[in-house]
């Protein structure tokens, strides 16, 4: 959806530019709303 490399997405998460939460087993989840926010800002 973002058209980015795996590591670019993890990098955005690490730098706090993309908000992710951890699911029960520790897997990263990025909400649809957060993706929409990222693609609609600026």
């Amino acid at each position, binding site marked *: 959806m973002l058209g980015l490399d795996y590591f670019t997405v993890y*990098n955005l998460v*690490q*730098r*706090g530019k993309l908000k992710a939460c*951890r699911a029960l*087993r*520790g897997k*990263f989840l990025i909400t649809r709303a957060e993706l929409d926010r990222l693609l609609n800002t600026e």
Partner: protein
Amino acid sequence: MLKRNGEDCEHPVPNYPGLLTASEFKAYNVAVPLVAEEVRLFNERATTLSEIEKQSAGTAEQVTSQMARDLPSLTVKGKPESEWKIRHVLMKSARSEMLLCSRDHEGEQQFGVVEKIDPKSPFARVHGDTDLQMTGNNAFVLLQNYVESERSVLQLFRKDIEATVEEKLSEKFPSQNHSRVVRAISARCETQAPVESEKENPAKSVKIRM
């Protein structure tokens, strides 16, 4: 022979110091192909980072002593926009390039790590196709910080691989404890970065003045 849950611990697997029981080994063999691509990507990235680290002194010396006048340049969107000369390609993938760049800033040479992403991607259409990740006045220190930062990103990726294994195995073998299998799969990620280096706080841009 050591037993666990009535089963002999007799199955060695790559990079993992313990031995798995027959049940664990079965789960392990189910999990390996499920995350094979992610593990490959992890190891490829870890190897590239080690190479960057090994060559960082030479790369820094080269970019510090070389004139940047005729090199290709790029513009980083932001406030204000900045123009950077591309000095060295740190790594390249299908959708992104990590570049060591430099510019003259307030009478000094400033270095920066810039990620150039696919300009056609939805992200680039909104945010631009360049992302200045960190800056510094010492190229060697900047490269060291870059490698450290990328290694902590790798640890996030590794945690996700472990979570995926745990999730898939819980679906296929709901009554088993998969903690040792998860650790054994994680051991296939041959990182040189210590796991405890994972940082919860997002990395900020680094500005070093020497």
